[in-house]
């Protein structure tokens, strides 16, 4: 089998794994922030779709990928704004609104695509990569990991930035308090609603960015339902990661690698039904849960709207 796998191919596989992992990573990091602050954000799939659509529109009409990422993040924020308004400010049920937003954006983006692109199917140019000197010369790993678009490095850097925020800043304390005991945060003089709103909007920005990456870099185009459940995977990753950004990264990479493994096995001509291979990442996670499935430490106030002085 080794003969089959040229260096170029292996590195393409790894590259593919990273490309598939980045949207999951961004969605997972975003969801993690909401959950930390006590908001179960089921609408993240809708935020990703909004990001994918607007991100593509931005990149396509401006010709600039960066502008695309910006509009994509903006799209996610716009949806998050609705969520923040309805679920954080006035305290509607987060699951109802989350699912409704996801359904609505599935429909809306498909509708817009139909009227706008369903005849022309525009596609973007190839993505410019930033080559990291020296590191990119490492065989196999180099081209896969160190010849990526700048946003990929930024996304990975974000993991560590988030870790820093959570552990070392007042904002991190605020977020954790908002999720574990919002009343305590409130009497400490920090507005819980504002803190949670910030968290939800950040989620929207990250999910939107993830969607934009998926459309602009992952696919190079937009089609309806392009996210294919990536948002829900993000929720799972965030919950598995127990508040640690690094674990979101690991989880996202696991999924990406499993996807590439599927391709690798097929190219190697191993005759296993794809449906079976496709179950691999989920099976892996389930096995992990069964083996190490200690109590997932979710924030105590997760899913519960905060109202000052309510009893």
């Amino acid at each position: 089998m080794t003969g089959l796998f040229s260096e170029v191919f292996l590195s393409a596989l790894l590259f593919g794994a990273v490309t598939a992992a980045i949207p999951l990573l961004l969605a997972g990091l975003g969801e993690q922030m909401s959950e930390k602050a006590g908001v179960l954000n089921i609408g993240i799939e809708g935020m990703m779709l909004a990001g994918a659509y607007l991100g593509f529109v931005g990149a396509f009409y401006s010709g600039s990928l960066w502008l695309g990422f910006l509009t994509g993040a903006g799209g996610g924020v716009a949806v998050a704004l609705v969520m923040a308004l309805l679920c954080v400010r006035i305290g509607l049920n987060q699951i109802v609104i989350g699912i409704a937003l996801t359904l609505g954006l599935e429909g809306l983006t498909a509708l817009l695509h139909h009227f706008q692109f369903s005849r022309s199917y525009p596609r973007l140019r190839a993505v410019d990569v930033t080559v990291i000197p020296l590191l990119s010369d490492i065989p196999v790993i180099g081209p896969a990991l160190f010849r990526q678009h700048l946003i990929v490095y930024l996304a990975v850097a974000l993991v560590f930035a988030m870790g820093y925020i959570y552990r070392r800043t007042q904002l991190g304390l605020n977020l954790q308090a908002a999720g574990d005991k919002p009343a305590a945060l409130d009497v400490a003089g920090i507005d819980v609603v504002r803190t949670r709103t910030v968290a939800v909007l950040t989620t929207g920005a990250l999910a939107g960015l993830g969607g934009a990456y998926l459309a602009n870099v992952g696919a190079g185009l937009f089609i309806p339902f392009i996210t294919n459940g990536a948002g829900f995977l993000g929720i799972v990753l965030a919950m598995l990661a127990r508040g640690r950004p690094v674990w979101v990264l690991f989880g996202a990479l696991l999924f990406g690698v499993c996807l590439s493994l599927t391709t690798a096995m097929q190219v190697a001509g191993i005759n296993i039904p794809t449906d079976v291979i496709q179950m691999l990442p989920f099976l892996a996670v389930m096995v992990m849960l069964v083996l190490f499935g200690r109590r997932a430490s979710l924030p105590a106030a997760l899913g519960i709207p905060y109202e000052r002085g309510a009893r």
Partner: protein
Amino acid sequence: KSIAILTPEEGTDYGWNQQGIDAAKAAAKAAGVEIVVAQGLGYGDVRPTLRELAADGASLLIAHASGYNTSAPEIAKETKVPVAIVDTPTGLEKGLVADYTLSGHEGAYLAGRLAAKMSRSKSVGIVVSGEPPSWNSQSAAFAQGVKAESPDVKVTYAVIGPAAYSDAAGGKRVTESVIASGADIIFGQGNGSSFGMLQAVETTKAGDGGKVYFIDVIGDKTPIDKGFLLSSVVWNIEPVYAAMIADLKADTFGTKSYSIGLKDDSVKLLKTAAIPDNIWAEIQALREDVISGKTKVDPVYDAAAVRALMTSVAQ
């Protein structure tokens, strides 16, 4: 008098749905009947739509998806309105159910020959988003064509994933991997995800630094091509629908299966500027051989069989 066609997705995909709808429109126009298009119905339950169309007076319901071949005959019996279904040659019923099994395998075989002739790297790839029978038969025939042309040419087969019809990112990712494994011609089948494949072809260089070419199926993506489309196995379903309408009028509906093939150009290979004339001439000669029966191409519909075949031709 009117006929109705039902498709799972919108008829703007330069593929299965669009070819079906365009053909039905053309056939209806030629026959002077009205046409009702019900598109984007999804792969769920179409019985409500079938019943409604029947109640609205359609005299033929074309259920243009293999997913509809259980519900449509049932509704035909219930409402006594004739239906046409796909991929079910055994389901014929006089006056009620006709089958049209569309397989472009003959065309795919030619595409395989073409790809083998044109591949610089002696390596071609097949990327599919799922494994429905009509795609399987083309994947298999394509591989057979490649091997018939030159046993040295490597064929790589990759499925994006189950129900990955809209996974454009997956299409791009898998296609890029296949290109990295050496392929410089991609035979791609997928609905939404085929645009991802196209994108991969357009943005990835082959191993020798040259262009990678794409061979499409069913529809004609020339209008949106950026110069990477090598060919397409184009299906023209209009003759099938025309024959159905004729049979309906002649009271012979439901007595035969309809199909498409190279013979009447209902399956044909698209000629693009990327194909040199001499190679195109050779392909045309091969086409004659297939039509005359000198070359036999048997369709393989089963996914497991296709994968077994791919394993055997991979090396």
